[in-house]
């Protein structure tokens, strides 16, 4: 056994331990903290698996935004905890669940061990066609060109989720401000951080998007970083969330899928198929879509974390 594989086993054990903790922890809040740590550790695993793009996304979403979402929800639901805890199912039920889960895990494990030795791969195909787009990052190629329909539909899913969250607001609050108004001392420590960090964060976010063309990065992690910076400023009370009826906000929200669709339909008119990029313009077109998508992702993710409207627009 080499040092490297010992390290991998240790990392896997730590990840599993953390996962176990998020399941068995008594308090939900503690489990949420565990989940944040778990997200960070998973980012390490992804780097180890040579999937840096995924690691970036995991670090941004799993360690950052999910953490904020879950911590916030856990803090607000704290009061309801004791009663819910009393509903813990009985021994037989738990035993059955454990048996079922163990079976499922064993099936997964067996399928991992039984994967064919000459692993099927699309990497050569992705490499052979990379010339067509002029981008150096194969994952971006797959996301933006070879499987662009998936990415387009995924944007729609994001928007649908946001519409779902918004529609949970009571009628009188429709069109209001999402989330609570954060009061903060404008001279306080948090406000200081909210002034210091976002400029750096925005530069990093744009850098990650830009690097995504040729190196690991891209619209998802970049947009998530931007969303986090926006939320930081909101949480510090330096600015408020926009009303959900704001026209400008809605324009930003549809910018990404909109540009994507226009380009896709253009491909139908000019080229051969929906989302077929003319080879000469492939790179600029993809980058234009990426930029529009980054804005949309940042706005959508930020608002998803902010939650349903809780204050009416009238105030």
């Amino acid at each position, binding site marked *: 056994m080499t040092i490297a594989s010992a390290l991998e086993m240790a990392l*896997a054990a730590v990840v599993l331990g953390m996962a176990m903790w998020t399941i068995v922890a008594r308090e939900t809040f503690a489990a949420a903290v565990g989940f944040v740590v778990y997200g960070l550790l998973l980012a390490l695993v992804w780097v180890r698996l*040579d999937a840096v793009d995924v690691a970036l996304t995991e670090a941004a979403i799993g360690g950052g935004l999910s953490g904020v979402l879950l911590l916030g929800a856990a803090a607000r*639901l704290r009061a309801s905890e004791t009663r819910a805890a009393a509903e813990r199912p009985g021994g037989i039920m738990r035993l059955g669940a454990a048996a079922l889960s163990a079976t499922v895990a064993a099936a997964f494990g067996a399928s991992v061990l039984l994967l064919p030795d000459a692993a099927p791969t699309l990497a050569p195909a992705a490499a052979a066609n990379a010339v067509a787009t002029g981008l150096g990052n194969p994952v971006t190629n797959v996301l933006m060109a070879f499987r662009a329909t998936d990415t387009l539909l995924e944007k729609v899913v994001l928007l649908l989720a946001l519409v779902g969250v918004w529609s949970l607001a009571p009628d009188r609050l429709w069109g209001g401000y999402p989330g609570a108004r954060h009061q903060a001392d404008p001279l306080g420590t948090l406000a200081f951080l909210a002034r210091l960090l976002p400029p750096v964060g925005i530069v990093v976010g744009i850098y990650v998007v830009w690097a995504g063309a040729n190196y690991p990065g891209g619209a998802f992690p970049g947009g998530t970083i931007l969303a986090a910076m926006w939320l930081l400023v909101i949480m510090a009370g330096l600015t408020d969330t926009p009303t959900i009826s704001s026209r400008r906000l809605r324009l930003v929200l549809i910018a990404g899928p909109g540009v994507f669709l226009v380009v896709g339909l253009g491909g139908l008119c000019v080229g051969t198929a929906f989302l077929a990029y003319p080879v000469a313009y492939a790179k600029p077109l993809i980058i234009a879509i990426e930029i529009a998508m980054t804005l949309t992702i940042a706005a959508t993710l930020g608002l998803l974390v902010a939650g349903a409207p809780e204050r009416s627009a009238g105030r």
Partner: protein
Amino acid sequence: MSAATVFGLCGAALAGLGLYGLIVNPQPLRKIVAFNLLGSGVFIIFGIVARRGAAAGFGADPVPQALVITGMVVAFSATALAVALLLRLFQTAGSVTLDADSPANMGTDSVDA
């Protein structure tokens, strides 16, 4: 054992753990967390499929990687929607139990636990 196998088994175990938590934990928020664990275990299994497909100079097959990135974003949006539903339930019912017989779900708020 190669890195792919180690983390693959880890992913399988994570999926099992997540499923267990999803069934056993009574609190909805915990169920959401457990569901995310389950999802991440499956993502890791995708990741090792990608890793094993390393070819053509890439460290990992880009297609499963792209699928995982898409999946993570979708999982996040589903989580956000679930959390919002839960908070709304808490607002209207004053409790977040999923038990249909619970008095809280019939509109009265009692402290029977």
